C-alpha cells in the first residue's frame, strides 16, 4: 500500500510530498524524501520496553509502563527545580501537555531552540521578524542569501523545493531566476554552488551586517576599508545588489546564532532586512532544524506568552534566556531532576551540563537509544511521531500541517505518557492548588 502526501518528520523543511510504501504494517520504501528523512521513516532499532536503574553506571532492568511512569511522577513531584527538555521531535498535542506538566511541577520547560535558534527569538524581541511563508519566497525571490547556514547538508531539499531551483509564478526560470550569495566563514557545499561566496572572518558577522546597513542607508563613507574580512568595495557592491533586488531573501542558521554576539547577529540582520524594505521587498527566515521545533515555540507562546525557557517555579510564567534556559540552569548545577522528551540533551549539551545531568535523576521519553539514554535512570519508549502517530507540526515558516500515521505499533504516545504522569503527580500532591 502506498501512502501519499506524507509529511517528513525530520527537519524544518517539513516536506509534505513523500510517498511511503507500507507492507504488513511495516514501512518498506520511502520516495521523494532526502536520505536523512527516508532513514527516519524507514526506522531503526528502538527501545523495546521501559527500563529503570538507580545507578547510572549500572544495568537497566525492564519495568512496566506503570512502574516507570509512577517513579517518574514521584521524582518530578518532589523536585525543587525540575527541567523538562526536548519537545522538538514530538507533535504539538503533546507539547501542550508538557506545558501543563511544567505547571504542575513548578519547573522549567525548554526546548532544543536553546542550543540552536533560541537566539533568533531574542533577536525577534528586539526587532521583530519580516518574513512570510516558503511559497512566497519560492514564487518571488530573485536574490537569495544563505548566511551561516548550509542547506545542501542540513536541509537537503530546501533549495529544490523552496529557495533556489523551483520554478514559481515570478521565478519561472528556476535557478536562472535567482542570484545566490553565501556568507560564511568557510566555503561550504552550499557556497560551492552559489553565484557568489563571501568569506567572513569568524565572529565578525555582526560587523559585516552593520557595514551593509550603512551602505543601504547611503552612509558608506564612514565604513572602513575592510570589515570582517570583506573589502569595502565588495560591501558596497553587495549592499547595492540587495537594494536593487525585487524580492531579497536571507536564510540564516547556526553560523549567526551561535557565533560571537549570537542573538545580536540576528537582530542586526532583521534590521538590515527592515531597512532594505524601503527599497524593494525583503524577508528573512531562520532555518529551523527539527521538524517541529517551530511548533514548540508556537504552542509554548500561546499557552504561556513565551516561546521557550519558561520557569514556573513562582506559579506564573517567567522567561529570561541567560537565566531560564536549560544550559544556564544545568551549568549552575541548579536542576535537581530532568525529563528529556523528544529531544537529545546528551548529544547537544555542553560537557558541564551533561556532568550535572549525570548527578540527578533523568527520565528519558523517546522511541530511540541516543546519548541521553546513557545518563538516564528511567527510560520510557513511545511512538515515533509522524510515522506511528499523527499530530500537528509547524514548518520552519510557521505553517502548521498534520503529520500522518503510517503504521500501527503497540507503544504509547508521548501524550499518553504525559497524561499519566500528570495524573500521578496530582495524586501525589493532593487535590489542592
Amino acid at each position, binding site marked *: 500500500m502506498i501512502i*501519499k*502526501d506524507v*509529511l517528513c518528520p525530520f527537519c524544518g523543511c517539513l516536506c*509534505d*510530498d513523500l510517498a511511503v510504501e507500507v507492507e504488513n504494517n511495516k514501512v518498506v520504501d520511502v520516495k521523494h524524501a532526502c536520505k536523512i528523512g527516508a532513514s527516519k521513516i524507514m526506522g531503526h532499532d528502538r527501545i523495546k520496553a521501559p527500563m529503570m536503574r538507580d545507578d547510572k553506571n549500572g544495568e537497566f532492568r525492564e519495568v512496566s509502563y506503570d512502574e516507570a511512569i509512577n517513579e517518574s511522577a514521584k521524582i518530578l513531584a518532589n523536585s525543587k527545580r525540575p527541567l523538562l527538555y526536548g519537545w522538538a521531535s514530538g507533535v*504539538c498535542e503533546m507539547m*501542550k501537555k508538557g506545558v501543563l506538566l511544567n*505547571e504542575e511541577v513548578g519547573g522549567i520547560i525548554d526546548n532544543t531552540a536553546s542550543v540552536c535558534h533560541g537566539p533568533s*527569538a531574542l533577536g*525577534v*524581541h528586539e*526587532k*521583530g*521578524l*519580516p*518574513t*512570510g*511563508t*516558503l*511559497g*512566497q519566497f*519560492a*514564487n*518571488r525571490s530573485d536574490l537569495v542569501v544563505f548566511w551561516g547556514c548550509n542547506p545542501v547538508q542540513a536541509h537537503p531539499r530546501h533549495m529544490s*523545493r*523552496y529557495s533556489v531551483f523551483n*520554478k*514559481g*509564478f*515570478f521565478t519561472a526560470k528556476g535557478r536562472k531566476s535567482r542570484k545566490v550569495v553565501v556568507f560564511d566563514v568557510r566555503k561550504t557545499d552550499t557556497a560551492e554552488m552559489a553565484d557568489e561566496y563571501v568569506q567572513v572572518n569568524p565572529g565578525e558577522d555582526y560587523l559585516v551586517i552593520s557595514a551593509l546597513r550603512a551602505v543601504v542607508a547611503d552612509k558608506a563613507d564612514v565604513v572602513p576599508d575592510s570589515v570582517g574580512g570583506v573589502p569595502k568595495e565588495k560591501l558596497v557592491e553587495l549592499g547595492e545588489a540587495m537594494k536593487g533586488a*525585487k*524580492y531579497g531573501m536571507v536564510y540564516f542558521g547556526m553560523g549567526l546564532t551561535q557565533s560571537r554576539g549570537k542573538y545580536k547577529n540576528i537582530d542586526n540582520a532583521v534590521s538590515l532586512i*527592515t531597512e532594505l*524594505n*524601503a527599497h*524593494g*521587498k525583503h*524577508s528573512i527566515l531562520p532555518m529551523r532544524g527539527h521538524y517541529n521545533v517551530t511548533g514548540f*515555540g*508556537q504552542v509554548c*507562546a*500561546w*499557552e*504561556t*506568552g*513565551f*516561546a521557550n525557557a519558561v520557569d*514556573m517555579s513562582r*506559579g*506564573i*510564567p517567567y*522567561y529570561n534566556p541567560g537565566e531560564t534556559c536549560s544550559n544556564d540552569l544545568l551549568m549552575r548545577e541548579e536542576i535537581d531532576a530532568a525529563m528529556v522528551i523528544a529531544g537529545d540533551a546528551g548529544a547537544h549539551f555542553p560537557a558541564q551540563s551533561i556532568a550535572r545531568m549525570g548527578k540527578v535523576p533523568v527520565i528519558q521519553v523517546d522511541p530511540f537509544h541516543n546519548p541521553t539514554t546513557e545518563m538516564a535512570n528511567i527510560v520510557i519508549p513511545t511512538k515515533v511521531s509522524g510515522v506511528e502517530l499523527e499530530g*500537528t507540526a*509547524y514548518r520552519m515558516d*510557521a*505553517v*502548521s*500541517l*498534520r503529520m500522518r500515521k503510517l503504521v500501527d505499533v503497540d507503544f504509547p504516545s508521548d501524550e499518553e505518557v504525559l497524561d499519566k504522569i500528570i495524573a500521578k503527580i496530582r495524586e501525589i500532591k493532593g487535590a489542592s*492548588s
Partner: protein
Amino acid sequence: MSEMRIKNATVYDPINGINGDLMDIAVKDGKIVDSVGGSAQTIDAGGRLVYPGGVDAHTHIAGSKVNVGRIMRPDDSRLNNKPRTKVTRPRTGYTVPNVYSMGYGYAEMGYTTAFEAAVPILKARHTHEELEEIPILDKAGLTLFGSNWMVMDAIREDDLDRLAAYVAWGLLASRGWGIKIVNPGGGEAWGFGKNVSGLDDPVPNFEVTPRQIVRQLAEANEKLNLPHSIHLHCNNLGKPGNYETTLATFDVCKDIKSKRDRQSLHVTHVQFNAWGGNHWGDIESKSEPIADYLNKNDFLTIDMGQLVFGSATTMTADGPVQYANARLLKARWSNGDVELEDSSGVTPLEYHPQSYIHGIMWAIGLELALLTKDPWKVLMTTDHPNGGPYVNYPMVMTMLMSKKRREKEMEKIAELTFDRTSIAGIDRELDWYDIAIKTRAAHAKVQGIIELGKGHLGVGADADIAIYDIKPDETDATVEFDKVEAAFRHAAYTIKGGEIVVKDGEITATPKGRTYWVKATAPADGHERMMEDLKMKFKKYYSVNMANYMVQDEYVEHPYVFETGYQ
C-alpha cells in the same frame, strides 16, 4: 436536564424590544425557555442589569498574527500575570494575552461569543488550534479572500460562479464563518513591497482593481447566501485624507441586496479610515460625512475601532500599513506574507494623549458612534488589540454613555485635537438599551447569528446571560461612570449555555465553547472550473500539497456547521 431561573432581572434585550423590563428568565438545558419548575437553581438578580452575553464581531484573538505578537513581546507577556486557581490556568499578557487569559478576560466582562477577524486559509489550522484552547467563548473566524490569486483570477475572467465556488471551498478549507477583505488587492501588491492607492488602482500582475474585488466578493457572498455580509477593511487605512476612499468604497455595494435580514456590507474599524487632511500636519476628523452617509443609507454597518490610550499591538493583514507604522515610529516589525493569499504585519505601539494625532483618532471612534443616529449601525469595538486591548471595552462603554466621562478623558488630550474634531461639542449620551445594541445585539445581527440563538434572550436562544452589579433605575450612568465601568469589568454573573462561568468577576467554570463555520454549496460547473484552477495552483505554486492543506476535523472539536447554498 439542568434548570435555572434568574429572577428580578432588569432586562435589556433589543432584538426582542425589551427595554429595561423587570422580569424572570428561565433556562433549561442551556437554552432560554418559557418557564422552569420549582426545583430550578435560582439566582436573584435583585433588579440588577441583565444583558444577553456579549458578542464581539471583530477582534484578533487567535492565530499566527496573535502569536507573532506574543513571541515578539515578552515585555507584554510579563504584564497582567496571574497564577493558576482550582479552575483557571496561569494568565499572562495585556495586548496579547495567552489563550487562557483571552477567554477568561472576555467572560469576566460578560462576553460569551467572539469572532476572530482575519484568518489566512493556509494558516487556518493554527487559528483553530488557538481557538480550541480559548476557554468558555463560542467563536468563529472570518476568512481572508481579498488579495487571493484564485479570487483575482476568477474576477479577471469574469466568472462569478467560479469565484463563489472558491469562496465556498475556502470557507470549508479554513472552517470559516464569512468573507474578510483587507486592503483589497493590497496584500498581493505588498508581495513586492507595493500597495494599491485606491479603488481603481489595478493590482500589479493581476489586472483587477480593488473595486472589482469588493464588488464581486459581495455578489458572491449574496449568491451563496452567507449568514454574514462581506467584512471589509478599506484601502488606504491610516492615511490622512482616506475618508474619500471610504465613502467611495461604501458606494461600491450600495445596490447589493441580501435575502437575509442584514446589511450587504460591513466596514470595520472605520475610525482608522475616517481621516481628512493631506498629511500628518493637517489631519482632521471626517466622522461627519461618514456618519451622514450612515444616516442616509441602510445597506451597511460599521464598527468603531476605538482608540484607547496606552500600549497596543497593531496586527492586521494590511502589510503596507504595518510597515509604514513601524518605519514611522522606528518600532519592532514582523511581517507575514502568505503565499497566493494575503499578507500581515505586527507592530507594537503606544497611544499618547499628548499626541494630537492620537487625540484625533480617539475622538473619531466616539464621533462615529454618537453622530450616527441608529445605534444598530455602529458596533462598539477597539479592533483589539489594534486600537487597544478588549479589557478596555467597559471604559469605552462609559464614554459613550457619559459626556462627563469623555470630558474627563479630554482633559489629558492635546488641545489641538479639539480644533480638528467635533467630539467636544457632542452632547449625546447613550443609554443602557443603546449599549446593549452596540455590544451584543447589533454584533449578532451583523454576523447573522441571531437565528443561532445569540445576542438575545428570547425563548430558544442560547442561555448566554450577563448580570451586572448595577441597578439601572438607580444609577445615573452620565455621572457614576466609574461605578458603571467597574460593573461592566467584573460581571456579577456570566452564564454560558446555562452554566455559571463567572461569579463576582471570578471565573468559576471553564467549559469549551463551539466553533461556528459555514458550509456552502456552489453550482457544480463553477465548482469544477474552480477545482481545475485550484489544482493547477497547488501543483505549480503552493509550497504545500492540496491533500495536506485543508483544516481537518480534528482541529474543530465542537463545531457548529451552518449550511447554506447557492441562490
